């Protein structure tokens, strides 16, 4: 049961970060050329692999209770950040995340950054692609390493991440356009719920708590947080309407 949740959490979180990274890579690659952009992607991927190779074994030597408190606490903080944004967007208080707007912004910045000759290295493309992939990838690496080590199944968490990145990359490269149709806000809401659920479970276990029903408590926690966030969305939506505020629309920010 928790294996399915582990794969799902890793898959969804990685897919969200993958969409964000791909949007940046596509915008730079299409507007300035692919050679330097793909070199940036390759360099960032190598850096990420090094981080995982160093972090993974290091985490296994830390006592499991201490690890669960720290990792569970961090996942819980991330989950709450994602849930907060998703609830604010769902209730109209925050602009929806718009990958197409981000794509247009990145492409315009790339086009304005100056010409390069076809043969030389384009450091603008390399740097933007490297930074985008590295930052989004770090979040994926963190989730994979921590989820995997806590559940004692790093390969399953890694499989979820690899599957997500593969799906996002294949779809993105086929359409050669931002993945605007991917319901990213809904995915972020789901990932926020999963991170909050796992984070609560592990952090509390690390603090010495015994959950009734053991792993089954994960499903109860998930249902509890889903219900609570649904109520919060309804309350804020009603408040938004009562204040007669205009819809927040879409934005290119994170």
């Amino acid at each position, binding site marked *: 049961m928790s294996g399915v949740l582990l794969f799902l959490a890793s898959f969804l979180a990685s897919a969200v970060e993958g969409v964000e990274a791909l949007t940046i890579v596509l915008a730079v690659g299409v507007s300035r050329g692919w050679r330097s952009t793909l070199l940036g992607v390759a360099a960032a991927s190598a850096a990420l692999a090094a981080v995982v190779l160093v972090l993974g074994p290091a985490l296994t030597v830390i006592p499991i209770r201490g690890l669960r408190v720290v990792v569970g606490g961090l996942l819980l903080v991330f989950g*709450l950040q994602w849930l907060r944004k998703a609830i604010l967007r769902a209730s109209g208080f925050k602009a929806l995340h718009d990958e197409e707007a981000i794509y247009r912004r990145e492409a315009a910045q790339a086009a304005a950054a100056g010409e390069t000759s076809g043969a030389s290295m384009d450091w603008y493309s390399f740097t933007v692609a490297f930074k985008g992939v590295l930052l989004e990838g770090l979040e994926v690496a963190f989730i994979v390493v921590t989820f995997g080590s806590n559940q004692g199944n790093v390969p399953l968490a890694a499989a979820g991440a690899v599957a997500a990145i593969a799906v996002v990359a294949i779809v993105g490269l086929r359409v050669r356009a931002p993945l605007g149709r991917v319901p990213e806000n809904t995915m972020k809401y789901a990932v926020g719920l999963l991170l909050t659920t796992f984070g609560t479970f592990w952090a509390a276990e690390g603090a*010495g708590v015994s*959950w009734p029903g053991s792993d089954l408590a994960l499903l109860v926690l998930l249902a509890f947080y889903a219900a609570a966030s649904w109520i919060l969305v309804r309350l804020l939506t009603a408040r938004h309407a009562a204040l007669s505020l205009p819809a927040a629309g879409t934005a290119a920010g994170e």
Partner: protein
Amino acid sequence: MTALASFGRFLYDFVIGDDWTAAVGVVVAVGLAALLVHAGWAGWWLPPLVVVASLSLSLWRGTRGIDAE
């Protein structure tokens, strides 16, 4: 800005994000659960309640300024 300051800012944004109340709520939830367990009581029921309370507080803080507009 020095590299250390840049890294500090990155770390703050990575962990704390837009609102520090979530991070404080997590520390309170885990700390209180540990105290309950240490006192010999069941502590499983407390963290979810503190987490939802901290999320509600964070949302209230994030939207209260809009009332004044």
